């Protein structure tokens, strides 16, 4: 089993608040893992740690065989470790096509070119358009991002990530705020992504998690409580108690 992404003993605290304690995760190539846990369990923090937006206090992070613990975020993206955001983090005044074209240009090293017009980057534009088409955003590709429907903006989050040709994709609640019927559609799009991409996604809707994840990691209070197949997790008494129990209290 080749690992796409793995962490060893990752720790992080803010003052006395421990947000990650001895986190060890192994995400094999092409797998779809879900990361679940109650609010404040440290799921988004873990994504921030893995993508370099936060520095861990201890431990190491590997992309494939490469130790990326010390690399800045943009560098990790260029190596293939890419994330999306729980709260839309887009370019409001750029059109969907411009946004994705920008991401493609950054990947192929053309974003520093200032002496040629954007229309002459035909290959990059074509690629961006194909990505938007695959996520059914082609019809609105020339609209400014701020004018897109919320669900379309969620898809654009994923489109931007895909434009970087990720090896590992970390999706932070990709369907956050999306109505239930649209959320299934969104996860169908995610499930349809290339099997070359390993995916770790955070999601609160258990139906979605059990349907799309091959394995589930449960986090509580900055620690990994348990990891297993959907069947194992759904029958685990600790998960029932800690996770589902708390969820009922809201």
């Amino acid at each position, binding site marked *: 089993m080749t690992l796409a992404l793995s962490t060893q003993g990752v720790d992080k605290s803010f003052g006395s608040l421990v947000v990650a304690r001895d986190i060890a995760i192994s995400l094999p190539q092409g797998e779809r893992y879900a990361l679940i846990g109650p609010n404040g369990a440290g799921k988004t923090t873990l994504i921030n740690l893995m993508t370099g937006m936060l520095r861990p206090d201890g431990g190491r992070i590997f992309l494939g065989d490469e130790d990326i613990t010390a690399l800045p975020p943009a560098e990790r993206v260029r190596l293939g470790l890419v994330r999306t955001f729980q709260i839309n983090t887009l370019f409001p005044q750029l059109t969907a096509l411009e946004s994705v074209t920008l991401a493609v240009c950054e990947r192929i090293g053309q974003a*520093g*070119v200032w002496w040629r017009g954007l229309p002459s980057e035909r290959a990059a534009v074509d690629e961006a358009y194909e990505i938007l088409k695959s996520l059914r955003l082609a019809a609105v590709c020339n609209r400014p991002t701020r004018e897109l429907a919320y669900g379309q903006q969620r898809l654009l989050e994923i489109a931007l990530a895909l434009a970087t040709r990720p090896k590992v994709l970390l999706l932070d609640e990709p369907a956050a705020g999306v109505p239930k019927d649209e959320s299934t559609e969104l996860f169908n799009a995610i499930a349809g992504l290339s099997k070359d991409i390993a995916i770790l996604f955070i999601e609160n809707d258990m139906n979605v998690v059990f349907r799309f994840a091959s394995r589930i990691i449960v986090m509580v209070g900055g620690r990994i409580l348990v990891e297993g197949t959907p069947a194992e997790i759904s029958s685990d008494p600790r998960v029932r108690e800690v996770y589902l129990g708390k969820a009922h209290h809201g």
Partner: protein
Amino acid sequence: MAMTASTPSTDPHAWLRRQTRWHPVEIAFWLATLLPFFLFPNYLVLASQIAITALFALSLDLILGYAGIVSLGHAAFFGLGAYASGILSKHGWGEPLTGLLFGAAVAGIVGYATSFIIARFRHLTLIMLTLGFGLLLFELANKAHWLTGGADGLQGVKIWPIFGRIQFDLWGYTAYSYALIVLFVLFLVCRRLIHSPFGLALRGIRENSVRMPAIGAPSAAHIRKIYTISAAIAGVAGALLTQTTETVALEVLSFARSADTAVMLVLGGAGMLYGGLIGSIIFMIARDQFSGIAPQYWYFWIGILLIVVVMFLPNGILGGLSTLLARWRKP
């Protein structure tokens, strides 16, 4: 939502090409810049100053309007260009075009050196850094009397005829032609730049600096690059002022110049390429007219204009006009 993929509005290439195409209003604008030759031949000196200020405002627009780097010390580069070309000519080389290049090079090199600091900060810190750098350079030039002439200004600047033939005249005919041509050429460069992949990356930084690293973008490298280009263009503007006036006053490095230019950009509309040009035309003509009425108080009127514009036209006069135009087209 009912649009299909075959309608022209979703053709990606056609849409992008349309963004870079010359608008008839643009052509009209550049033709109008020739009007002073025929309508106001007595104002060609003022026209040349406006063209120089417009070029400086354009350089500020590249960093402020496109990359979102707010600078209150951009006159540093204008002044560097002005002094560099002036000192070069004082020491025996008065050829204008190489003088412009020299001004651009000096300003560009200093711009590149400082860009390493600039690229690491944002917001208020950045404003204060640029402001501090501007003040520092002003006092350095003030102190270095032996090199710059200090508060007395740099004397003894002699500019040779352009191409060895065209003399600078008292009426500003050559000065305006020369400044206008340089402005237009560098405008073409800027226009190409903002419609390039690099221009798109700059807008990306302005729109969302958090997302840029998440798509693998080296934002700091982009910022260093545009800051250097902007500084070099500001240097050309400064050199133009030296060459058309054959003197350099300490004022070229002043805070007032940095602030005035930021005001022009806000008045005209930042991030629209023409905003700085429109803004400098309005500002300079207003200054000329109002200071004729009451020399001390002309900033009063600029103050009113600025307040009205930022309250009612958040994207400047140009932004207001284009909104109006869009509304008129789509009733």
